[in-house]
């Protein structure tokens, strides 16, 4: 019996020691001269086998060419729900991808390393486009690096537009050039096909985000800085007119879908499945329509954002990379090498860039994605890569080029995003849009007045 007691004690102590060992085992970085770089967004072998294979090959080749650098794949993708916890827990990949809309949050929170010295050393700093640099730089340094960017355009279902008589013989869509024309085209589609003429997201702050663009084109500036104090600046007739435009689409022209609470995903689905003819979307969303919702490649069209009564702006979005704030100088340099050699993030047109660009384009074609849409450049005009990439996309274009020509050939001015409490503003505007789309008697003036007051009282006053 006593033996059993001793045995229990021994087992208990071993268990506790094992637990303690498990708890205190760290994941410290070893300083043996090698650099181990964890890279986020790594494709999953089962979900994306082709992309996974490409990345594994790139990793093998990169490690062979760069002895001393070990790439550690990490499948974590940027996610608002897990980002802060990972950032505070210091468990972010050394190199992670994020979106333009998150840049401010990441820089303000100090969750990315200053990479300015490394960018200068690699000769990248002077070649970054000025409008990009404004987003990623502050007085202390440069904290992210854009890898791809897009402007918002008008996604089209050409089958529906053709039925409504809005496609030229050569396949060029007679896409609306102004917001008034958008109403005409949408009405024609609804009358002739019975389908939805236009779809506009209203949830997840996406409606508010797109609405700011509509507002700029009506002449609105949502916030202004007066003597260092931020003021809400959209309680005016222009903004009311922009909201009234959305309201009229629903109640006066009846060209919006019956369902009001929709996000970008739902918009993609409706356009892809031929339920809606037009919707604002970044070019990347065309891929979602094609790959996720099996839209026919020949049915996809893409044009530029229609002009408003006062301006003609579009929104800028995109992806960028950040190095975790624990990344060392060596890791940052290794990361820039990886980006240059394996991911084609490089302002200099070399064989590596050409190889990775071609590989990406071929992968897009194989996976049924659209190739041919030419978007905004990350690098300024001192760089040849944008020209090369544009030519490559034209050459490998897998749709009738006329379907997307309007977007490629009409580059609009980009309006910078609202500088302060942008997500909060989008949330308030989402609510206004939802109200005018569910309530025929909604008072646009009162809604805008309340949204401006709430923006000031709930958010800006705390920033001032």
């Amino acid at each position, binding site marked *: 019996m006593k033996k059993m007691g001793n045995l229990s004690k021994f087992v*208990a102590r071993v268990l506790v020691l094992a637990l303690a060992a498990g708890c205190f085992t760290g994941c410290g970085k070893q300083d043996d001269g090698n650099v181990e770089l964890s890279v986020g967004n790594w494709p999953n072998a089962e979900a994306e086998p082709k992309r996974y294979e490409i990345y594994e090959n790139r990793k093998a080749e990169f490690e062979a060419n760069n002895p001393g650098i070990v790439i550690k794949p990490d499948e974590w993708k940027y996610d608002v729900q897990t980002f802060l916890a990972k950032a505070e827990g210091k468990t972010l990949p050394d190199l992670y991808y994020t979106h333009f809309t998150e840049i401010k949050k990441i820089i303000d*929170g100090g969750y990315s390393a200053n990479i300015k010295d490394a960018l200068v050393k690699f000769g990248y700093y002077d070649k970054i486009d000025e409008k990009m640099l404004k987003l990623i730089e502050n007085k202390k340094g440069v904290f992210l690096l854009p890898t791809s960017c897009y402007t918002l355009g008008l996604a089209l279902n050409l089958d529906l537009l053709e039925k409504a008589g809005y496609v030229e013989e050569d396949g060029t869509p007679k896409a609306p050039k102004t917001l008034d024309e958008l109403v005409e085209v949408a009405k024609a589609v609804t009358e002739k096909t019975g389908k939805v003429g236009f779809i506009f997201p209203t949830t997840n702050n996406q409606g508010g985000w797109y609405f700011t663009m509509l507002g700029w084109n009506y002449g609105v500036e949502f916030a202004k800085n007066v003597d260092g104090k931020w003021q809400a600046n959209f309680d005016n007739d222009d903004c009311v007119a922009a909201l009234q435009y959305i309201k009229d689409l629903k109640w006066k022209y009846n060209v919006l879908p019956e369902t009001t*609470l929709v996000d970008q995903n739902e918009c993609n689905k409706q356009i892809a499945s031929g339920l809606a003819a037009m919707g604002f979307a970044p070019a990347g969303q065309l891929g979602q329509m094609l790959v996720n919702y099996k839209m026919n490649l020949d049915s996809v069209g893409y044009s530029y954002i229609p002009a408003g009564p006062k301006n003609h702006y579009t929104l800028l979005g995109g992806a960028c990379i950040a190095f975790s704030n624990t990344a060392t100088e060596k890791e940052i340099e290794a990361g820039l090498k990886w980006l240059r050699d394996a991911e084609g993030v490089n302002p200099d047109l070399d064989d590596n860039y050409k190889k990775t660009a071609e590989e990406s384009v071929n992968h897009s074609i194989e996976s049924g994605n659209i190739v041919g849409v030419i978007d905004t450049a990350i690098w300024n005009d001192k760089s040849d890569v944008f020209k090369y990439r544009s030519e490559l996309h034209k050459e490998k274009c897998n749709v009738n080029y006329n379907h997307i020509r309007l977007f490629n050939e009409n580059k609009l001015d980009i309006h910078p995003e609202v500088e302060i409490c942008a997500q*909060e503003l989008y*949330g308030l505007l*989402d*609510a206004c849009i939802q109200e005018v789309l569910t309530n025929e008697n909604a008072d646009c003036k009162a809604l805008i007045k309340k949204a401006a007051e709430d923006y000031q009282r709930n958010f800006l006053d705390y920033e001032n």
Partner: protein
Amino acid sequence: MKDNFKSNAKKSISGWLLILPSILCVYFMIVRPQVLGIAYSFAKMKGFRIIGFAGLDNYVRVVKDSLFPKLLFNTFSYTFWSIIIGYFVPILLAIVLNEMVHFRNGFRIMTYFPAALPGVAVMMLWYFLYYPDASGLFNMILTKLGFKSYIWLQDPKWVIPWIVLPMTWHGSGATALYYFAALQSVNRELYEAAMMDGAGFIRRIRVVAFPHIASISLLFLVKQIIGVFSILEQPLQMTDGGPNNASMSLGLQTYKYAFVQNKPQLAMALSVIMFLILCIATIFYFKMEKKLSDNM
């Protein structure tokens, strides 16, 4: 004295070592997050980093937010509708299960089946049933019956009951099994005696079954209030709080503060406010539980 202490400590060390994993789990999973949550609610923060003491500023900001009264009203509204729609359903299901002679096992599985589905799947399923155009199942039925189609989740006046309905569908099966277990413990002779006295079905339920489940039903009422008061996932998945914040809840606002607005300190302050409101319900719950155990 010292030797005695040493000897006692030596004797009990194995016991302490054995419970150490549990203590660590409770500390890291329950105590630490709660204490830190309360501490964060009084802090100035940058991301999840404390940069100073804010006193009651976070609380003032949360309460002064123009949305706060609506959030409070909506949250109570969720609780109200969950009681109206969802409270009696499990009791009815349990009574039906208890009274069934044939297909009892099959019906029990059917009753429990929705509870086995993941919450996200349930909400997505109902989202499509509610779809406001002709492709929504409910609208298909309405139009077949000659009625106009209806906007369901986009009706600001009724969006909360429409969200509560799938919650009831999802959750009532599991609760019904508790009631069913309680009903199973009722002595069959009581039913037989009631039947011999000429009691019909309704009377049997009223005089025999209900007194047996009265205590447990009170506990479930309090648990339901506590559970629904922190509702978050359902409106997040089905409406994102819309239309025009008609389905926003305090729980969903904590999520938005923390993950959309990147202000965890406000999320924590709001959580503490919710915690205080729920404390009242919890005190009530413990009193009820005590009463129940005293009666047993």
